[in-house]
């Protein structure tokens, strides 16, 4: 009995033990699962910095996340770089600071950086261009060979800085080459160049060699406009006045045949074409420098798809820009210089024909340096690569009807 009783007790104890083990295993699983669900400290800190807010909000939380990341050391380097992809502009600078602090600490303690992983990150063009460049600069500071190894393959990189380096390298080679070899190097360089100074250097060399270079097309300048004016802007008061063309622009109902009351009498839309390399529409020279006036200009830009692009423009005059009737940006500043890509506005373009409309205002300043009345406008991607309008949208053999183009048989 004792034996049988002891056996039952043993079975019972074993069952209890098994139950306890199972319970422990289960709790362990639950905890492990919970642990798995919860982001690790690095991911969490990257997430906080990634979504850093405007106006200094949340800076204390950001400081704590920064300390957590820098305390994680080398392990945090790649997650930080990966965090660039979805970071706010504020977040980018927080993440950059975290990365630099860790890299500095690694160097100070004579620990190697994860060069292989960083190199792979740099070469993957799907990664953030800023993060790739940061990784490159960090590695290149200790590795002089990196430039020659990686830069030649970056002529068409999404990063304008990598492109610039690749173009510069080709230009250096071209200066020591001769004849067709030099021309070929300049042609190659042009294919990647997005900066004005480099394009000018290349175009000059190619033209000297008898080559044709279409700088305007390269940058994606809009060269054909319809323009109307002058309207009254004396004492700069016309800036705030929505003259009739402006009302039509906003309503997306621009009538190219309309006649309006201008400051000097009746005015109508007129076609204006610029052949300038850099797309400058010079109102003062091509029409007249109407002092104290405003002009409206419209152009069509056909997009093959819905896409986010940049409109980059330069003007020394006050201006407003509308895309498909929506105000994209406005700036009331006169004669503080002008240059290529002076302003950059990110816009959403719809598939088909988009209408770009521009109001440009001249004031009455009399100084020599205040007589310019001009603008240049181009469409490009975030890298600065010129984007040309897509093929004309055709429906049943008839071009799409737009405000400016009433359509017709193709």
């Amino acid at each position, binding site marked *: 009995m004792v034996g049988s009783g002891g056996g039952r007790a043993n079975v019972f104890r074993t069952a209890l033990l098994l139950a306890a083990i199972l319970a422990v295993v289960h709790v362990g699983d639950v905890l492990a699962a919970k642990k798995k669900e919860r982001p690790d400290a690095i991911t969490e800190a990257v997430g906080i910095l990634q979504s*850093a807010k*405007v*106006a*200094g*909000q949340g*800076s*204390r939380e*950001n*400081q704590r996340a*920064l*300390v957590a990341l*820098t305390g994680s050391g080398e392990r945090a380097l790649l997650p930080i770089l990966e965090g660039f992809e979805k970071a706010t*502009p*504020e977040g*980018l*600078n*927080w993440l*950059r*600071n975290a990365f*630099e*602090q860790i890299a*500095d600490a690694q160097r100070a303690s004579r620990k190697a950086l994860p060069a292989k992983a960083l190199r792979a990150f740099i070469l993957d063009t799907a990664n953030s261009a*800023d993060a790739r460049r940061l990784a490159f600069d960090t590695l290149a500071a200790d590795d002089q060979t990196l430039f020659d190894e990686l830069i030649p393959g970056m002529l068409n990189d999404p990063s*304008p*800085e990598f492109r*610039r380096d690749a173009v510069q390298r080709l230009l250096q080679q071209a200066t020591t080459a001769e004849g067709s070899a030099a021309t070929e190097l300049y042609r190659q360089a042009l294919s990647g160049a997005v*900066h004005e*100074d480099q394009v000018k250097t290349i175009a000059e060399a190619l033209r000297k060699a008898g080559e044709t270079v279409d700088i305007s097309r390269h940058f994606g300048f809009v060269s054909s406009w319809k323009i109307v004016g002058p309207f009254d802007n004396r004492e700069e008061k016309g800036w705030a006045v929505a003259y009739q063309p402006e009302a039509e622009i906003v309503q997306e109902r621009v009538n190219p045949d309309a006649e309006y009351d201008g400051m000097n009498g009746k005015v109508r839309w007129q076609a204006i074409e610029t052949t300038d390399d850099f797309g400058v529409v010079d109102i003062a020279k091509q029409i007249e420098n109407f002092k104290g006036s405003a002009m409206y200009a419209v152009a069509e830009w056909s997009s093959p798809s819905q896409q986010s692009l940049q409109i980059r423009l330069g003007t*020394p005059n006050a201006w407003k820009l509308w895309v498909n009737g929506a105000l994209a*940006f406005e*700036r*009331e*500043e*006169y004669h*503080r*210089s*002008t*240059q290529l890509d*002076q*302003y950059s506005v990110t816009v959403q373009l719809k598939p088909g024909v988009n209408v770009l409309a521009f109001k440009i205002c001249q004031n009455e300043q009399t100084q020599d340096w205040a007589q310019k009345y001009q603008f240049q406008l181009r469409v490009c991607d975030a890298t600065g690569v010129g984007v040309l309008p897509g093929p004309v949208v055709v429906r049943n053999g008839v071009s799409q009807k737009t405000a400016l183009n009433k359509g017709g048989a193709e």
Partner: protein
Amino acid sequence: MNRPDGKSLVLALLCGLQFSCGVLWAGDWKQFRGNEANSVASGESLPTELSGSTIAWKAALPGRGVSGPVIVDGRVFVSASSGYTQNRLHVISIDAESGMQLWQRQFHATGRTQTHEKMANATPTMASDGQRVFAFFSSNDLFCLDLKGRLLWYRGLGREFPNASNSLGMSSSPIVVGETVVVQVESDAEAFACGVDVASGETRWQIQRPRAANWTSPALIPGRGGRAALVLLQSSKGLTAVYPESGKVAWEFDKGASTIPSATVSAGTVYVPSNGLTALKPGADSVEQLWNSGNISPATSSPVVAGNLALVLNSSGVLNAASLETGERVWQLRLRGTFSGTPIYARDHLYLVNEAGVAFVVKPEADKGTIVSELDLGETILCSPGASNGGLFIRSDSNLIKLAAPK
């Protein structure tokens, strides 16, 4: 035991007074034109005989800048900008004694980076409250770091206020008073000034300012004798005194002022570049004009008070000295070249550096000014120098240079 003589007692008392005031003590140079934004290096003894041997060190910088150095706790801080579009923003910390770089941090601009070719994105001089440094750029990016280079907060004012920019560049340097860093962001298209909390980076106050291009920097009336400190905001309309913690206006001077050189304050009197140079005596809620001198016009450099003289550099590189009592010009001294930076006055000598990089030491006296020595540094120099612990710190287009008496 010997009794202390009267001279020692006075010295001890003065030292104690200086120590308790803090800002009067030699050592740190915490912001544009010094701790009190008046270009006076109190207690500093800088070398008067400049020569090649007074170049203590040169430290290469990673980018251009018009910004001057600030010095805190034996460390020099300076900003720079680089890259084809000047979008790379650098903050560099250098050991003041050795010239060795302690750290460098790099950020990316979120505002417009375009400037006139003579200017740079790194045109405003940094500021410090002794524990933190504040780096401000033409693109209106404002960074706060601790002295070891850890980011404490960041404001992309160019992104928050995208029309507050100038295609020629912005140059106004921030000023720190107590718990507030004050920045002036003024352009033709949008203009404001704001006080930002030094600890959190959040806006304490913001006021609209005259919509017009403006390159001046805030000046300071230090809080003394029971009176609160006031920050002076200058524009083409005149001068507005605000309380730094609230932005509330204490008084206004509305007779117009320059938009490039900034006002300076000495012994409670404000010397503002307005219709030449104008002296103002501020009261609690009003201001009285003491004199106006139309024939003394500061060009880019701000006026400096030295003893009983107001010293002003004109556009021809001529140093004009005016009586502090009447504003009448008492002497002129022709120097060479043009000047962008504002000179420093230290222990009876004025230190000036022209754009070509020639440094001058001038002794301004009641009836004349004399060039004591000069040194051609051979580099473009547009900044206003800083002074600390016997060293004069000058930033060129590519280097930070320390001048000090040879050891």
